[in-house]
Every structure is written in structure tokens, then in C-alpha cells.
């Protein structure tokens, strides 16, 4: 293309992976997604199985949050 430098050498297979520019979106989506999914499952358990008013949703949200943090540590961590 006129005026463009030739594209930079595509990274070879053993080159270090590119800086994770979408890391922020992945992290937030794991956190919020985890709490939504397990909070939702907890709410369903609350509503249909146990009849309590919010405790299962709370437990689900905490489990989901912890699982989200674990996923981030595994996927984006060292």
C-alpha cells in the first residue's frame, strides 16, 4: 500500500505472546459473569427449591465471585 510500511514481522511461534490488550475486558467479564451465573443459579434454587428469600443467591454470588477470580488467575496469570 502506498505510504505504508510493510507490516511488522508476524510473531514467530516461539516469540513471546503479544501484550494482552483485551485483558481488562476478559477480567471484568469473568468477574461479573461468574457472579451473575452463580447468583442466578442460586436465585433459582431459592425460588423453586428452598423457598428462602435470598441466602442461596448470596452464597451463589460469593462462589461465582471466587470462581471468577480463580479463572482470571488461571487464564491471565503467570
Amino acid at each position: 500500500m502506498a505510504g505504508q510500511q510493510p507490516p511488522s514481522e508476524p510473531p514467530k511461534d516461539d516469540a513471546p505472546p503479544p501484550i494482552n490488550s483485551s485483558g481488562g475486558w476478559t477480567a471484568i467479564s469473568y468477574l461479573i459473569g461468574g457472579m451473575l451465573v452463580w447468583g442466578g443459579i442460586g436465585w433459582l434454587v431459592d425460588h423453586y427449591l428452598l423457598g428462602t428469600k435470598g441466602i442461596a443467591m448470596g452464597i451463589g454470588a460469593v462462589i461465582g465471585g471466587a470462581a471468577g477470580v480463580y479463572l482470571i488467575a488461571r487464564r491471565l496469570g503467570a
Partner: protein
Amino acid sequence: MPSTLLAEVVGSTAAIGYGLAAIGPGIGVGLVFAAYIQSTARQPEAARITQPFLWIGFAVVEVLALLAIAFGFIWAGEL
């Protein structure tokens, strides 16, 4: 003598609770990213090495703020 109602504050304590709960993680996330930016400024080659710790630190601090949002809804009614 029966007590009379002199003044009344009406509103949602969940909102106040979330406002207070957001102070800590706000400062925490700022500290995490500030440390990453500083370390990258001092030694740019270390940026790629320290980036995983950036995301782990951000996740752990942010989950507290998100739990605050969740519990605001959960405790809006009685348990």
C-alpha cells in the same frame, strides 16, 4: 408517655452501604494500576513479566466491589 416521632430519614441503607463499600476497592484498584505503571516506567522490559500480576491483583480487589453490588440487592429485602 408514648414516644413521638420527631424526625424521620427515609431511604435505602443498601445505597449507603454500597457507597461506603466502594471506597476501599476504588483506592485498591488505583494502587494496583499505579504500581504497574510505575514499574513499567522504571523498567519497560518488565512490563510483559508483571502483567499477569496486574490482572490477578485487579481481580481480587474488584471482586469485593462487585460483591458489594450483589449484596445490596440481596439484602434489600429481609433474608
